[in-house]
């Protein structure tokens, strides 16, 4: 602490930082225009002038470092006159010039007649987002701020809204909600989209969600958001929200009361179980529902229906990450934290496109690279981060394992491994070394389409730049070698000692806000809440729940659909998940759903799955309308809080499940609220014991947090692995995908996400994001486009062995020849008609990332 005097009164303020920081800490008012805690102080507005004893002239408080014993004067007639003079100059400048007005963007209105040249928009676009959209042009009186294109819409803007958030005057303004007036209540909650889990403040007025703003002190987002979190919230009030339960009879929907709906559900599920046994029923839960919702749903499956047939959409994304991490190091969780991005000297981004799919983390990686961290990108496409990378390995789709094995080969062959770590904390090195002898870079180069020298360089960069952390996405997991790919990444980390210390780690970037949580709450046929295998947790859970757990193994999501086709599964309860659009090989999915006797869908909207196949529809409310917790990709459990009352008759998912359970005569489902459910989770899971709602209130806590005084765990496996003292280096043989190009199907199609849309488009499709990205596109390399005769915007038919889809072409040099990339968000396109039946043998995760296709003009 530093002792300072401010306006004659003594204060004790935190050390370091600026004089402005000290003044603010002392809660003394001092005007600023250009200050924002997210930005480097620039001192351009000159309003925070103060006098410091011993300094000859007035100085700006924001750019003056604080020193112990300073005597600071913030208010005097001299300072007031100086400030008035500065304001007068600002006003004169504003009057003197022409001002840009730009209404080209759906979310941001620009009216530079209100601009005071504080440059906060320019700075935040550079220093936080890294997009460089706002530029300072001209000089002197003619200085003006302009976007880098002819209009904001045509600029490089990624619509994150950071400039609007920082603008002190309203020169940049949110357009959404402007008609309804400023919010009168702000509720802190967590973003409803990706697994980064940014906290946000939801602004409401008259029962309407009118604005969202980022949370400056959030440990995850650090005052930043992306276009989805910041602006794509209108789906909450979409006109086609279903708000009353419905039952289908003879093809037509009939609105019913909740009691009637529960009675129908109870009768029909009861009927299936009576006739075909409990294992004929199955429950699919949602990675966008809270931990409480998911916990209750798997309890419902196991304790009420009596089956382990419970799974969630983690199955189609990061189940391989969880499986590999559980197998090798003992916990199916990211080993580090997002803060490791800033601590790492080397970042390895493998099979992920964070700037589009996890934009806030993407921005953090970009800024880390700009500050000088080494960045290695392994991705078939030249993604945005590749431009900031030291090295981009454009690996052929489906060949990650070969590439990572060759990198491991280089590490061992050149003696770059961490000898102490290998000796103390791993086993199986000799066998592993023998296996890797067969994987020189020259062999991988042929398979992966990357030259051997680059593979070697990547290995050297990763192994010599400690600490090194890796983040990976679905480009690693959604392959027939998904689990193996993650295991190969872990091997690389083990060889170089990059697990268990700050700045290192193997960190899956989770796709949805609660993928980590849903799977961790036991929505997986093989594990119970807390990720405890069924056999290990049986006794404790049976005691807590007061029922005997089923003994038969449960089915994973793909196995449930297989079971539907062969008649062994008859009833499916789907919570917040559009199975038909999300799952691969849509024709097979449709066949499975059509074969079921009972389909209960619990969702906000009549999704494609519900519209075509549901027998009962139970309207759920959005995460803006309920309380609970989400667990993000870095294992951080954060509080979700209701900003709105549930729309119409809709209810929270946990409430629907509990009421249905009670209607079926089950006990143990009379929770007073989400906190009571969470307390049951805490009682059952040692890792959650210290996470009371009260402790989670600000910023959340990272799992595990075993006691009430535990600070949460930023880095796992620090001293010993969760599985024991040593991790086994496991040889991972490479297997070729069956989707290799052939003369009949010469292209390899990769599917993925765009910045503006999210998965099945259920939410983002109902927002103005749809104006920014109106349709799914097929990206094709310029060479292939010329060869096949496809022009920009042409409609093309993509044909695989499984089905076809028609979408517009986009000629894009970031895609390699022979490859295609398409997004999968548009219900009308239904791209998953094309993707195939390939699965990772360990987890059943579909092979979305590579499908052999051919093209035709549509």
């Amino acid at each position, binding site marked *: 602490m530093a002792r300072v005097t401010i306006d004659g009164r003594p204060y004790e303020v935190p050390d370091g930082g600026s004089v402005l920081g000290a003044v603010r800490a002392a809660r003394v008012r001092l005007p600023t225009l250009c200050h924002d805690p997210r930005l480097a102080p620039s001192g351009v507005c000159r309003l925070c002038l103060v006098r410091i004893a011993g300094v000859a002239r007035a100085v700006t408080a924001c750019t003056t470092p604080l020193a112990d014993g300073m005597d600071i004067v913030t208010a005097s007639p001299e300072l007031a006159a100086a400030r008035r003079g500065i304001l007068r100059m600002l006003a004169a400048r504003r009057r003197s010039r*022409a*001002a*840009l*007005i*730009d*209404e*080209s*963007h*759906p979310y941001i209105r*620009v009216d530079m*007649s209100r601009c005071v040249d504080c440059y906060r928009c320019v700075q935040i676009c550079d220093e936080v987002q890294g997009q*460089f959209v706002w*530029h*300072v*042009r*001209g*000089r002197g009186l003619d200085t003006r701020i*302009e*976007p*880098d*294109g*002819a*209009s*904001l*819409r045509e600029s*490089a803007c990624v619509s994150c809204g950071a400039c609007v958030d920082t603008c002190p005057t309203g020169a940049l303004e949110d357009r959404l909600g402007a008609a309804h007036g400023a919010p009168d209540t702000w509720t802190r909650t967590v973003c409803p989209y990706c697994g980064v889990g940014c906290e946000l403040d939801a602004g409401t007025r008259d029962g309407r969600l009118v604005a969202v703003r980022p949370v400056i002190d959030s440990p995850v987002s650090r005052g930043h958001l992306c276009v989805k979190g910041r602006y794509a919230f*209108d789906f909450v009030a*979409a*006109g*086609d929200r279903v708000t009353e339960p419905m039952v289908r009879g003879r093809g037509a929907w009939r609105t019913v009361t909740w009691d009637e709906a529960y009675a129908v559900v109870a009768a029909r599920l009861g009927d299936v179980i009576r006739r075909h046994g409990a294992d004929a029923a199955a429950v699919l839960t949602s990675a966008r529902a809270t931990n409480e919702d998911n916990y209750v749903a798997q309890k419902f499956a196991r304790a009420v229906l009596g089956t382990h047939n419970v799974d969630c959409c983690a199955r189609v994304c990061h189940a391989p990450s969880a499986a590999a991490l559980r197998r090798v190091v003992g916990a199916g969780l990211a080993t580090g934290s997002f803060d490791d991005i800033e601590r790492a000297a080397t970042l390895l981004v493998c099979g992920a496109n964070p700037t589009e799919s996890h934009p806030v983390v993407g921005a953090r990686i970009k800024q880390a690279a700009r500050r000088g961290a080494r960045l290695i990108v392994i991705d078939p496409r030249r993604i945005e981060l590749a431009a900031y990378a030291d090295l981009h390995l454009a690996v052929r789709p489906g060949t990650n394992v070969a590439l990572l094995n060759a990198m491991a080969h280089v590490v061992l062959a050149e003696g770059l491994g961490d000898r102490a770590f290998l000796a103390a904390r791993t086993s199986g090195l000799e066998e592993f070394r023998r296996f890797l002898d067969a994987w020189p870079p020259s062999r991988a180069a042929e398979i992966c389409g990357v030259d051997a020298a680059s593979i070697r360089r990547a290995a050297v960069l990763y192994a010599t730049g400690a600490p090194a952390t890796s983040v990976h996405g679905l480009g690693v997991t959604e392959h027939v070698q998904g689990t193996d790919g993650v295991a190969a990444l872990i091997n690389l980390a083990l060889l170089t000692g990059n697990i268990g210390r700050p700045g290192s780690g193997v960190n899956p970037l989770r796709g949805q806000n609660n993928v980590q949580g849903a799977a961790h709450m036991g929505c997986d046929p093989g594990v119970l809440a807390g990720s405890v295998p069924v056999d290990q947790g049986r006794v404790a859970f049976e005691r807590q729940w007061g029922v005997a757990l089923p003994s038969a193994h449960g089915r994973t999501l793909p196995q449930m659909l297989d079971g539907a086709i062969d008649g062994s599964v008859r009833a499916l309860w789907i919570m917040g998940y559009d199975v038909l659009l999300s799952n691969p090989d849509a024709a097979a999915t449709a066949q499975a759903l059509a074969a079921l006797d009972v389909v209960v869908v619990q969702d906000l909207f009549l999704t494609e799955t519900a519209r075509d196949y549901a027998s009962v529809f139970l309207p759920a409310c959005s995460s803006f309308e309920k309380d609970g917790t989400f667990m993000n990709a870095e294992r951080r459990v954060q509080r979700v809080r209701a900003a709105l009352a549930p729309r119409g008759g809709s209810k929270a998912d946990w409430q629907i499940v509990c009421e249905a359970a009670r209607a079926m005569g089950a006990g143990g489902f009379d929770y007073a609220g989400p906190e009571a459910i969470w307390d049951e989770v805490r009682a059952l899971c040692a890792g959650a014991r210290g996470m009371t709602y009260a402790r989670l209130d600000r910023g959340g806590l990272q799992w595990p947090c075993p006691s009430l005084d535990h600070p949460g765990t930023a880095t796992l496996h620090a001293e010993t692995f969760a599985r024991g003292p040593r991790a086994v280096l496991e040889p991972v043989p490479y297997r070729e995908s069956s989707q290799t190009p052939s003369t009949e199907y010469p292209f390899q199609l990769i599917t993925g996400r765009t910045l503006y*849309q999210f998965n099945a*488009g259920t939410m983002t*499709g*109902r*927002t*103005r994001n*749809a*104006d920014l990205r*109106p*349709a799914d596109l097929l990206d094709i390399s310029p060479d292939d486009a010329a060869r096949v005769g496809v022009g920009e915007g042409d409609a093309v038919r993509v044909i695989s062995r499984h089905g076809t889809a028609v979408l517009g072409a986009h000629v894009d040099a970031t895609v390699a020849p022979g490859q295609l990339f398409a997004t999968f*968000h*548009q*219900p*009308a396109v239904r791209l998953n008609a094309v993707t195939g039946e390939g699965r990772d043998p360990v987890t059943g995760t579909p092979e979305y990332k590579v499908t052999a296709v051919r093209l035709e003009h549509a």
Partner: protein
Amino acid sequence: MSFHPKMEYAPARFHKSARTLPDPGGDFTYTAENQAKFDANVQRYPPDQRKSAILYALYLAQRQQGFLTRAAMAHVAGQIRCTTADVEDVVSYYTMFYTKPVGTYVLNVCRTLSCALLGAERVTEAISEKLGIKVGETDASGMFTLIEVECLGACDRAPVVMVNDDWEERLAPEQVGEFIDHVRAKGRAAFTGCHLHKEK
């Protein structure tokens, strides 16, 4: 995919006046000679400080084409390895980079203190009258452009006019007409030259 009513988006516009975007221009690449000059110049800077060569890169482009189009700025951006927008920023700051075509001779009249006291304003008026143009314009023949600039550093020889890269010193308003006629007739040979050269 949108479930929203259609929304009209207005284009960007300037209040009070039009926003002037740089002329897109036709294809632009350095001549082989200019490329060689740039390649030699950029060697003076460390590889990670390539941006430092931006002024010279722009100067070459302007020398080649007379003014800077967006295509020229994009070419410079490619040479420097930055965005076109970054180049536009720099161009917008410097008064000696032109974004519109200029005459063969650009008359830069200094209007800072010493020149102003010794009648710079009347020099501007005399040029203006002689050529029938206002400040910032080019005359009908395409030969002369009139621009006002800040201090040229020749205060002891005020009022001064810089014609392209050469100073015309102690240019009295009444000599302006004659000077312009001479330049029209004899080109560069009409320049009287800087006293520093003459006194050497």
